[in-house]
């Protein structure tokens, strides 16, 4: 069933290494492959340093991938030049929402100019009047008062700033938005607000999201499918219910067992599953589909046992 849907992003054997050939070489993303379908929300979870943010940044070409392919609407965008017309086109189609609302807005620019930045770059509006009108629309879309567009970012709270960041990303009418831990810097009460806003906009505009986070309950709430990353590799990928109800990889099981439950009775008996970090991977392992739509990083023997 899943295969019938249109794939918007296909990542094939993506590798992103830093300081190649030096003693401090880092394999931040090490040979990962996955597809993202049009209109879905794809969750990417993992511990700090597992490479999930790097994956996002490689896909949006803030980094030049070391190896592998990234197909966006069937076109390979992993090798296009950073300043060509192709790149400019691509920059309109894919956008990013950043983690820290205090660092993602230029403190010396007015909200109006921050949001209109993409409009200016791509020449989407003619004249000051149209520009202002569009900024008003965008502010309205993220439930901010359009009167505030002449203010500076420091005059806003974290949640409001994050919504300005969302408005900036949506200004160029992208198809695909990478949200790089968009709520982890926010208050819990504000998190739900921002997530609901993102979902509403997704419904209205038919967007596709890649949602990077480490808050598992939030990822389950927003995502259709979830990939679990560990040490630069995807260890498990499945529908979010499937991942939560039938985790197969030991790391996923350990991760899920760590979620606290707001019920003292359950919490009393909750047992954490430890994951052995000493030998996480062996050479004969790879990501394979062990159940329909359920991918697991394992060796052939384990994969066969599920069939």
């Amino acid at each position, binding site marked *: 069933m899943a295969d019938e849907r249109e794939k918007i992003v296909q990542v094939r054997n993506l590798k992103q290494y830093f300081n190649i050939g030096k003693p401090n070489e880092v394999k931040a993303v090490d040979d990962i492959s996955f597809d993202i379908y049009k209109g879905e929300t794809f969750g990417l979870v993992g511990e700090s340093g597992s490479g999930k943010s790097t994956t996002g*940044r490689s896909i*949006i070409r*803030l980094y030049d991938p070391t190896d592998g392919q990234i197909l966006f609407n069937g076109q390979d965008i992993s090798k296009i030049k950073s*300043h060509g017309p192709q*790149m*400019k086109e691509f*920059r*309109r189609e*894919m*956008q*990013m929402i*950043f*983690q*820290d609302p205090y*660092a*993602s*807005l*230029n*403190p*010396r*620019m*007015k909200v109006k*100019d*921050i949001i209109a*930045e*993409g409009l200016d*770059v*791509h020449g989407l509006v003619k004249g000051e009047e149209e520009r202002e009108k569009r900024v008003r629309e965008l502010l309205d879309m993220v439930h901010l*008062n359009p*009167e*505030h*567009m*002449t*203010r*500076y970012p*420091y005059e806003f709270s974290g949640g409001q700033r994050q919504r300005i*960041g969302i408005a*900036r*990303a949506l200004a*160029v009418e992208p198809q695909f938005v990478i949200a790089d831990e968009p709520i982890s810097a926010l208050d819990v009460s504000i998190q739900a607000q921002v997530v609901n806003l993102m979902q509403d906009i997704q419904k209205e505009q038919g967007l596709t999201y890649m949602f990077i986070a480490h808050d598992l309950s939030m990822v389950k709430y927003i995502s259709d499918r979830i990939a679990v990353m560990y040490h630069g590799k995807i260890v498990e990928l499945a529908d979010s219910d499937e991942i939560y109800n039938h985790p197969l990889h030991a790391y996923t099981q350990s991760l899920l067992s760590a979620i606290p439950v707001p019920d003292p009775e359950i919490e009393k008996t909750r047992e954490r599953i430890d994951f052995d970090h000493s030998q996480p991977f062996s050479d004969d392992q790879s990501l394979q589909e062990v159940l329909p739509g359920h991918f697991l990083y394992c060796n052939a023997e384990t994969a066969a046992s599920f069939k």
Partner: protein
Amino acid sequence: MGVKNNMEQIPNVPKEKFKLIHDENNNEQEKIGTPSLTYLQDVRRRLFSNKVAVVCLTLLSIIVLISLFAPLVAPHNPNAQQVTLSNLPPKLGNLNIPGFNGYQNMGGKMVDAYKQAGASKDTFYLLGTDYLGRDLLSRIIYGTRLSLIVAILATLVDLIIGVPYGIVSGWKGGRTDTIMQRIVEIVSSVPNLIVVILMMIILKPGLGSIVIAIAITGWVTMARLIRAQTFQLKEQEYILAARTLGESSTKIATKHLIPNLSSTIIIQTMFTIPNAIFFEAFLSFIGIGIPAPNASLGTLLSDGQKAFRFLPYQMWAPAIILSIIMIATNLLGDGLRDAFDPQSDD
């Protein structure tokens, strides 16, 4: 007991008499938007609302204007000597203002120095004359002009070479940065005194060699500071956001980097200006700066210093002008730095 009584005394107010005021108030607050100005208009507004900065700006403008129109403003030719009228104290017309009446302490007695020198009744020098009978006021006006030229050129070099060099080096990073930083190290390892002396082999001593020496070595500190800041800024998420929007590197530099580097740039410039003036003064003082008849604040100070105990006015006047320039640039710089920061607004 008392509390209980009070409680009983609260009258029963019907519900309809209450009015919700908070909500309207809140909406009113939400509506207040700042006037629709561009960032630069905002900067100007903030600068002009700062009284100290405005005073300094006015003072500096007056000094700059006077030195710009020096030939029109100066009462005498600054290099014309009149040896008979040497070392005359300040005198303002024939008004008998203490300190400006042409009297001088000679051997414990106040004497009219102008009469002694045989000057005519109409001859007077507002700030007195130096040891060759040259008008000190005219010399200060021309000297300020020269010192300001040096300061402005040094600042321009800082801004035109130092800032872009630092931004490119920091932004590109990697090998470009390594090469550019090695060049900076080589340049900064040569003392600028040596550069001046080497320049004098090719050029005549004077403004040219001083300016070239500053141009060669002066921008290094600025470039280093800007590079370090750029390194920090380029990892900021708003720069990444600009990149994902497809903003070109030049645009990122002018729209995002320079506004956020402005405080560093301004503070460093505030160091450059006095440094350049002092560098020129120092060179003139040791005799390889501005050549003999021409005046700069440095040569005036060194001349005045020789006779300071007996003819203190010869050093006071240039020293006061130099101090005013220094203080005014520093305070104006503070004002500018605040003006560029939206958050300093109240």
